[in-house]
């Protein structure tokens, strides 16, 4: 039981607990907080895997921007505890088993399909940000540009959606 493994299990436990509390909390703010916990835990895992940059971006963008947006909206709409309606029979009886089955399927499939992953020699080296940047701006430059367009469109869309139409 070496140190990284301990850290891993610790973070994994936090992540899973956060996810579960996301499910169980009844107030959106609390769900959001638990989601933030999950994200921070994941960032820790990324660090553990030596993906510094991704970890930082994870916290800056997800934690610092997206989730803030969520909380902001929750505060703006003053969303209260969600009401317990049960209009969807489908979700009522089939939801949980199916979801669990999906989880199991995924886990089994992934776990069994990773024997090839095992074969590859894994270097725990940290990924130098420069290399990531190189990939991002040379090999993946077109997708990158596309995402910038996507962002632009999203901004415009958000503005159009949020503005009250004038009488």
């Amino acid at each position, binding site marked *: 039981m070496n140190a990284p493994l301990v850290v891993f299990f610790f973070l994994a436990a936090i992540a899973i607990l956060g996810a579960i509390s996301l499910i169980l909390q009844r107030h959106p703010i609390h769900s959001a907080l638990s989601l933030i916990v999950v994200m921070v835990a994941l960032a820790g895992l990324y660090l553990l895997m030596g993906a510094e940059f991704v970890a930082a971006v994870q916290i800056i963008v997800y934690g610092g921007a997206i989730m803030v947006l969520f909380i902001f*909206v929750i505060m703006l709409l003053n969303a209260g505890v969600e009401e317990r309606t049960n209009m969807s029979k489908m979700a009522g009886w089939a939801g949980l088993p199916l979801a669990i089955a999906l989880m199991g399927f995924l886990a089994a499939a992934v776990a069994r399909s990773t024997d090839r992953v095992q074969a590859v020699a894994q*270097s725990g080296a940290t990924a130098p940000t420069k290399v990531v940047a190189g990939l991002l701006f040379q090999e993946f430059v077109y997708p990158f540009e596309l995402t910038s367009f996507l962002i632009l469109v999203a901004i415009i869309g958000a503005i159009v959606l949020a503005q009250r139409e004038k009488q």
Partner: protein
Amino acid sequence: MIPAHYYLVLSAILFGLGVVAFIFRRNIITIFMSIELMLNAVNLAFVAFSQAWNRLDGQVFVLFVIVVAAAEAAVGLGIIILIQRNRQSLNVERVDLLKL
């Protein structure tokens, strides 16, 4: 050194939890969050693979996913505000005009 499939299984579990949240929460915002959770699980898988194969494409792709998530959040929250404004409710089960 942690075997890659630990991460993968973890991501699978997180994804499943995200699905559960999606199915069992009624609040649109929370459902949205569960989507983000699933995206995060996927990101974890990506990074795990990229580390397993010593290739950084996975990380780059994670960046793309994050960008997409940001865009999605912007638009989605705008839509949510509209829904609240028009239907005075955030409960998805009360937003069900799209049926027979």
